[in-house]
């Protein structure tokens, strides 16, 4: 099997991964960054047919100058923590990568909650819609509704406006009062306030609804209208597409597979220098809790400096990172999902797309785990990547644990991988 060795392996080339790679490479470390997507930038900075946002440019330039090597289109499929080895898959097949230390910067996934009509074509994840648009899907002149929760909604709506879409509404489930208190708490963070003001300005004229969530998406072969409940009042909008997202959930699959412990909120537990409980494995950015770009950059820089052995730099970053983390927690509280969202699905609403499971089959079951066993919810090819976070919200508990492979591999590749793991185990036990 092909093998690559380096000092630091970074998984994920989003802001956290880029910052970690820069920090370590600038301190003379040989750094390899793996990302399954094409190009650097992660969810928010990835360039498609549109140029990356201006905020990204200095970082992307610094990344290019740092000497860190990026491998795109390279998905990590398994790891062996004791041997600091990750296996990845690219166009040519499987690849073994080894390093002194590993930074997990795998980002987050959107949380989709099922409601009637959410599986209609034209209903997309907020982040998903943006990604689609970046890769060429035309938004100009389209009437698009944005619903769900979290700061991502405003960012996506603003982006859509900038690119010529007609944003019909932004429906935020959190109550205005709670968000206003949160905004007030930003008084000492002028940059955050300025960002918020800029978003607001871009969205002037767009109806911004609070305590509002989708009740039903209508349409035959494609969504043509959506019904919202705003403060309990029904409200209808004609739309060409609906972007929904109820926030983000930390992407912890690889971390769990490597044996990293999670905290009570389901994020990877880290110490003040981003170390997980597994020796020489760090986590940075959204896997450790949803906190936004600045948080991700700080954590990345901190992890990179710490992995490169620069204790002094790590110490300075640690203080700033702690503040950013507090901001992340406050954000989470402000946008906490309300109980009523558990009532969104009706009997016919599909909760698991892979296995076509409807809510009436799952409603009465006690836990996420039993729902999986009794209805096959989450057993399909996506292994619950979409439905399990929703089921966790709707039912509580976890449906299952991570099992290999992290991404579908052919049985032949799975055997090849298992054989290589065995070989490595033999080599290192001698």
């Amino acid at each position, binding site marked *: 099997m092909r093998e690559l060795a380096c000092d630091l392996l970074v998984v994920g080339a989003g802001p956290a991964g880029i910052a970690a790679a820069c920090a370590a490479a600038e301190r003379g470390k040989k750094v390899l960054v793996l990302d399954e997507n094409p190009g650097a930038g992660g969810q928010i900075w990835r360039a498609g047919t549109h140029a990356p946002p201006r905020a990204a440019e200095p970082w992307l330039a610094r990344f290019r100058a740092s000497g860190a090597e990026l491998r795109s289109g390279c998905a990590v499929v398994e790891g062996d923590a004791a041997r600091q080895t990750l296996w990845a898959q690219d166009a040519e097949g499987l690849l073994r990568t080894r390093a002194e230390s590993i930074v997990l910067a795998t980002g987050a996934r959107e949380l989709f909650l099922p409601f009637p009509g959410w599986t209609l074509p034209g209903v997309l994840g907020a982040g998903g819609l943006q990604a689609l648009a970046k890769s060429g899907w035309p938004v100009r002149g389209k009437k698009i509704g944005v619903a769900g929760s979290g700061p991502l909604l405003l960012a996506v709506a603003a982006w859509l406006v900038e690119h010529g879409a007609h944003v019909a509404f932004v429906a935020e489930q959190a109550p205005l009062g709670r968000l206003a208190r949160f905004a007030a708490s930003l008084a000492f963070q002028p940059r955050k306030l300025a960002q918020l003001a800029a978003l607001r300005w871009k969205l002037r004229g767009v109806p911004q609804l609070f305590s509002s969530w989708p009740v039903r998406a209508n349409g035959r072969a494609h969504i043509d209208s959506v019904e919202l409940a705003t403060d309990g009042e029904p409200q209808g909008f004609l739309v060409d597409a609906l972007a929904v997202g109820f926030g983000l959930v930390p992407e912890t699959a690889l971390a769990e597979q490597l044996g990293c412990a999670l905290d009570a909120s389901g994020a990877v537990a880290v110490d003040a220098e981003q170390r997980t409980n597994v020796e020489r494995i760090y986590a940075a950015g959204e896997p450790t809790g949803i906190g936004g770009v600045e948080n991700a950059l700080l954590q990345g820089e901190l992890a990179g400096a710490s992995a490169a052995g620069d204790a002094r730099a790590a110490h300075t970053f640690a203080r700033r990172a702690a503040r950013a983390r507090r901001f992340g927690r406050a954000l989470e509280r402000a946008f906490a999902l309300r109980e009523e969202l558990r009532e969104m699905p009706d009997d016919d609403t599909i909760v698991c797309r892979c296995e076509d499971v409807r809510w009436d089959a799952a409603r009465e079951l*006690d*836990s996420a*785990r*039993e729902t999986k*066993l*009794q*209805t096959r919810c989450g*057993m*399909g*090819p996506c*292994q619950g990547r979409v439905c399990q976070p929703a089921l966790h919200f709707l039912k509580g508990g976890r449906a299952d644990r991570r*099992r*290999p*492979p992290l991404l*579908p*591999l*052919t*049985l*032949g590749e*799975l*055997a090849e*991988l*298992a*054989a290589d*793991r*065995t070989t490595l*185990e033999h080599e290192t036990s001698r």
Partner: protein
Amino acid sequence: MKPRALVIGAGIVGAACAAELARAGFAVVVLEAAHPSAGATACGMGHVVAMDDSEAQLELTRTSRSLWEELLPELPENIEATRAGTLWVAADDEELAAVHAKHAYYLTRGVNAEIHDQHSLRSLEPHLAPDLIGALRVPDDLVVYPPCAAAWLLALSGAELRVGLAVERAEARRVLLHGGVALEGDLVVVAAGEHSLPLVSPALPLHGIKPRKGHLVITDRAPGFAQHQIVELGYLKSAHSHDGSSVAFNLQPRPNGQVLLGSSRQYDRTSDEVEPAMLRRMLERAFRYMPKLRALPAIRAWTGRRAATHDHLPLIGKVGAEGPWLAAGHEGLGITTSLGTARLLSSLIAGTTPPFDPRPFDPQRLCAEASHG
């Protein structure tokens, strides 16, 4: 008032016992530490199969299979019951001889079976390696989805299900829960799978049941890839080596087109992680029998634990004169044998003529085995 039966464990065996006891007129309460199908029942393959490692095993599996057969018309769709049949494939002359011997034996015991040569085997299962020289087809073997089967049996029993209750001790008419709480009944059945013996020790030796780890892998849908549950006959040679581990080719087509691949056998494993070395061996074994498997997308690998006894037969009967009833230790056949187990147990409880010779299943044999070392 109906007599009250307490059943410990809501796996397939506890569920089947609950259904049978309810039929016999008991008011049944099922006590479950976690939730229904939390143990081996969620992890295994659900092949309902006649097996003849011993005379007693064939009696139990054959009886059980016909009980499943009787239920077929009633089973809801989510149990995914199919009459897939089993193909026991032979790779060499020795195994072909075993095909013939098994065939002759099955016919004397009223188990339908037919021999296929290399040629007709190809037309039955085109993806099998061309050098396999023959097979025994057992057309009446079934495939079910165990967690839903257990849930259905529980519902059928009308039993009161109490979840989140871990039993610490089981006696003839009483169970003790954590914190000294006791529940009384007219009889108690221990069906806690691999965790059964601690509830009745020292009446039975703790190590009378040993977990035997198995690996499985499931693929994405590949409709039509295989029609039968396909098992290598080498299974007979490899499966029961008490020392060391073994793998055998065992493939199950799921009704939705997925392919479920087994399996491995290992004693003394404390971790339930997927082990690369075992996974590799198991997959290589499968590729030898069906090379085209290599190209199918795998979506999940996992492991499960079979509750094994020294003689590979379950423990069905009373624990001593003063103890509770026991139904555990079903190793790799508990989905199949749950129904026969429940039928036997209920006849032992009622004192009616058992459906087959109960002696090979008597739990007391563990004491004899222990004293022999």
